[in-house]
Structures are given as structure tokens and as C-alpha cells.
């Protein structure tokens, strides 16, 4: 099975327990409906198993298929510079139909981000590089669609059900 490359590091966006023995990585696209489907499954998993898991999100925006996905990824990373990556991540997935137009700016305002800083960070070279590096790591790891999950570096056989994620975690804990 395909392996995660490079391994999780301090550059990654993570939540859950940093000391956990299980690290779950998702490669996702903010405009992808299948990732929208997986989002509440991950929320539930973190609620039930959060003590046992470190969860990492890497960006895999398919720009040809999803024209708003790359901008959304930049927006979430820019929010991360104000310690609001996960709130932005959640609000985007919970409002996928509002992506595009002013949607992302509205989300940023609703999170009370410093908007002038957000506007500067959003399209900065460093943020673009972060998203592009995530995408390249997905290519190198064998991602060919979203969402794709890796548990402790090994690709998960995710079948769109909560059970497939839970069982993978249980087997590893």
C-alpha cells in the first residue's frame, strides 16, 4: 500500500492529541463533495477518539475540477496564521455551497480575523507554497482522489463509511 511522504511534521495543520500513538492524515479538497461527506465523520471520530488520535489535514485541491478549491485552501492556511485554521476548515466544509464569490471573505469576517492581515497573508508566496507542497506530497504518496487517508503513514481503505475509519483507528490503537 502507498505510504505517506513526507511524514507528518511541525509544518502540518494538526488537531487532537499530539502525544497520541495514532496519526491520521487526510488529503482533502474544500470544494469536493466527498470531502464534505467525510468532514462530519472526522468530527465524530475526534469527539469519540480524540484522545487517541492526532489528526492532520493536507491540501489536495483539484483546481480543474473545483475552481474555488485552491483559494479555499489558501484561506484556511491564512486563517491558521491567526490560530484559526480549524475554525476556518470547519466553516468551509459546513458551507461548501457558499464557496466562491465573497464566501471566503465572509467566513473570515465571521471568525473575526484581522482582515487586513488576512488579505495580505491569503495570497502570499509562503501560503501558496504551503498548499502546493501539500499537493506534491499527495502526488508522491499516491493520492489520486479525495479524500485519501493515511493512518500512521499507511493508506487507509476508506469506503466512505464511519466504520471504515473507526476500524482502522481501533486496529492501530
Amino acid at each position: 500500500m502507498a505510504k505517506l511522504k513526507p511524514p507528518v511534521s511541525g509544518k502540518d495543520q494538526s488537531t487532537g492529541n499530539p502525544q497520541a500513538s495514532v496519526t491520521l492524515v487526510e488529503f482533502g479538497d474544500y470544494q469536493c463533495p466527498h470531502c464534505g461527506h467525510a468532514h462530519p465523520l472526522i468530527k465524530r471520530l475526534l469527539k469519540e477518539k480524540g484522545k487517541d488520535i492526532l489528526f492532520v489535514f493536507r491540501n489536495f485541491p483539484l483546481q480543474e475540477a473545483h475552481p474555488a478549491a485552491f483559494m479555499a485552501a489558501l484561506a484556511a492556511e491564512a486563517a491558521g496564521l491567526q490560530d484559526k485554521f480549524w475554525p476556518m476548515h470547519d466553516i468551509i466544509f459546513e458551507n461548501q455551497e457558499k464557496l466562491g464569490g465573497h464566501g471566503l471573505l465572509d467566513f473570515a469576517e465571521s471568525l473575526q480575523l484581522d482582515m487586513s492581515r488576512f488579505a495580505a497573508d491569503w495570497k502570499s508566496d509562503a501560503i501558496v507554497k504551503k498548499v502546493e507542497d501539500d499537493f506534491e506530497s499527495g502526488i508522491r504518496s499516491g493520492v489520486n482522489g479525495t479524500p485519501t487517508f493515511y493512518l500512521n503513514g499507511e493508506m487507509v481503505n476508506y469506503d466512505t463509511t464511519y466504520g471504515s475509519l473507526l476500524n482502522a483507528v481501533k486496529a492501530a490503537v
Partner: protein
Amino acid sequence: MILQKGAAAPDFELHATPDQKLKLSDLRGKRVILAFYPADWSPVCGDQMALYNEMLRYFHKYNAEIIGISVDSKWCHMAFEQDRHLHFPCWLILNPKALCQGNTACTTIRRDKAGEGCLCSTRKELFNGVIFLPMG
């Protein structure tokens, strides 16, 4: 006969668009990825070509070009490229066996999302006319 790693790739010419032909040697100096696939519009291969399309900027970052090759007609390729917004060319090959016998590339590489089953016949990475690595 299958070309070995390090062997020189033979030159060949195929239709790139209905009124334009391209030779492999036109791309000399670049890494060239030949993505042989069974058919335009086929579901798994279509997805694979779509992913290559998303990866173009990364191929270019490493001085690589990708070319799709299948047996569909040049008009079919044109419609497929337009429909899928492909930014790389799909070349027409009328007789893949002839190309294989011409020593180009003839292995079977199988890979799909789960790393098994399905897929397209051949991919070889060429650099300055030298076959480097089969992908997949």
C-alpha cells in the same frame, strides 16, 4: 521486445491535433512521460488523465511534459481534451502493436486507486531520448 532502462528511445511521429503532427524528438531536452491509456471517455482512465492534468505544474517544475496516447481518433481526442479541459495533448496511435514492434514501449502496467486491477497499457519516462523509468 521491451526497451531496457537506459536504452535510447526510437523517434516516432503521431497526430497531436487533427491537422498537426508531432515527433518525440520535438521534445528533446525535456523529460517526456508517455501515458498510454485504453480509450478517451473510459471512467478510470478518464480520472487518471484528469489527475495528470491537475499535476501539470508539478511535471513542468521537473522539466517534464506528459503526452496521452491511445487509439481513439484525432477528432475524438479533440473532443475529449476540450470536454475535460486537458492542457496536455493526447496523441493518436492507430496501431499500438506497430509502435511496440518499433521498440517503443510495451510493458503492461496495472494500477488503480487501490493499487491493483485495471489500467492502461504503458508508461515510460524518456529523457533526452533515453528511457529512464517505468512509472506506476
